[in-house]
């Protein structure tokens, strides 16, 4: 995503091209989003409330939602999903800051090019590669045998389908570092050296310059990128499906399992789980934005 255009302060933005002109420009996009995205969500909520269009089951109730939330496995799944999303996002964000600071000083085109490769590789391929690398009989295990570290598969630590979601986190970190880094780099490239020079003349040390000049400069981009990564990792399916354990499952895997259950009565619960995931993500994004706004109003600039 390109950094959000500052339309309200942009001198080029002009007052409307007339109501009809704007309607004409926006109508196709609004129609698709309202019909397919909005419609999908509304139909999802309606089905999760127990109404199956055309099947005569007219009773609306919260029973599926309460069923999901009071399920003893829900908290477990929720915790696991939150843990995987938070840890992946934090590790990726921290490494991205380091990567951006190094890359901005290097200006090397070919390193930059190779660095971008993970952006375009589908998550699923990375997950498959991680299976081939980290499985008990994977490439790392073979390498460990070759150098005499271990005797066989049983000595190799469990790195995929494990309790700590290590394989899942590794895939996300590998995939998301270039994304966050490029968002930061876009800001760093335009920020110039002047502020840092001012810092130097005021005898600010390297850490002070980073903490009080660089970090505040990149924070909006870093925050936005991290939020997008969090939202993605919280709601993503294929990586935990391939690399996670069968119990506990992450929420998206659980939602799909319920949805595709042979027992059709489990289907509304699957959709309800999906809605819960969407609500958690939306709440997290809104909450994070309100927190930053409140902090800024109080003069706390991170």
């Amino acid at each position: 995503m390109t950094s959000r255009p500052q339309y309200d302060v942009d001198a080029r933005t002009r007052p409307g091209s007339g109501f009809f002109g704007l309607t004409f420009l926006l109508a196709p996009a609004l129609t698709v989003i309202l019909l397919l995205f909005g419609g999908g969500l509304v139909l999802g909520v309606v089905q999760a409330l127990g109404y199956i269009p055309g099947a005569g089951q007219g009773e609306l109730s919260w029973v599926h939602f309460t069923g999901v939330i009071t399920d003893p496995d829900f908290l477990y799944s929720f915790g696991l999903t939150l843990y995987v999303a938070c840890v992946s996002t934090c590790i990726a964000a921290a490494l991205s800051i380091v990567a951006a600071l190094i890359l901005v000083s290097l200006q090397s085109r070919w390193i930059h090019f190779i660095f971008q490769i993970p952006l375009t590789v589908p998550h699923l391929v990375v997950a498959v590669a991680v299976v081939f690398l980290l499985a008990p009989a994977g490439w790392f295990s073979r390498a460990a045998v070759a150098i005499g570290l271990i005797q066989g598969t049983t000595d190799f630590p469990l790195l995929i389908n494990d309790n700590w979601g290590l394989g899942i986190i590794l895939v996300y970190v590998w995939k998301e570092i270039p994304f966050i880094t490029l968002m930061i780099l876009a800001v760093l490239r335009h920020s110039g050296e002047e502020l840092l020079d001012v810092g130097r003349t005021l005898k600010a040390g390297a850490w002070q310059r980073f903490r009080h000049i660089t970090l505040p400069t990149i924070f909006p981009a870093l925050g936005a990128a991290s939020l997008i990564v969090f939202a993605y990792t919280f709601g993503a399916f294929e990586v935990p499906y391939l690399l996670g354990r069968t119990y506990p499952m992450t929420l998206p895997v659980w939602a799909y399992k319920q949805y595709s259950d042979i027992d059709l009565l489990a289907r509304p619960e699957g959709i309800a789980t999906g809605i819960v995931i969407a609500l958690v993500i939306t709440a997290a994004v809104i909450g994070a934005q309100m927190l930053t706004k409140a902090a800024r109003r109080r003069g706390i600039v991170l």
Partner: protein
Amino acid sequence: MKRSLAGFTGVIVICAVGIPFVPLCLWSFARRWFYPDLYPQAFGLRAWTYITSTAGTQVLTAIGHSVVVAAVTALLAVVIAVPAGRALGLYAFKGKDAVSILLTLPVIVPPLCVAMGLHLWFIRLGLAETLGGVIGVHLTFCLPYAIFVLWGVFSNYNPDFEDQARSLGASRLTVLTRIMLPMILPGISVAALFAFLLSWSQYLSTLIIGGGRLMTLPILLFALMGSGDRPVAAAVSLVFVAPALVVLLFSARYLGTRSLVGVR
């Protein structure tokens, strides 16, 4: 000092980015590879001949479906996103915040619940298990990305050129094809590439709307991982990555290095 930092960083970046591809390449050319050998005992082209032969029609069908779905999704996304991006990038209007939030909301809401909600409706409409249905659900989250890109493009766009052309007697259509499209062409390509890649790598929404019967590359890859045929799974994975690398080379060649900011 700077040179050595560059060299050091280069080595780390190459290793970190390259390592996942090592077992994929080795497995795709392996004929016999038992534990605990680090390299296959025997190399062969079985996996590659399998996926290109008639025995692998499944693979070719999946590639075909993936290409059609991603290409049509990208095309529709760009055609719809250009006017929307123009409205958001060029003009200030009442309710702009609401419109922009609505149009970018699908970026954070996972496709999972939208696909589940749409499924029953698509069954009624006869769109379930069809390419059209899958394109429809992919469009819901590819379109917002395309809009985002073109919004950025149009906020740096100077419409005065259009007025000049108009004052010289150019028709609306001429202005569109000779002024606007050439000026935003790089942005259009980036938006189309984003949308293509996003649709190309989509798994769950295809699975739900396609009912598991409509084969695309990710669906096939999951099936192969389940069946345990590692050489073929590795070869299909490499095919799955191929357009991504083409896109990257293309963008590095034609669009400069900053162009890929935001691909997911």
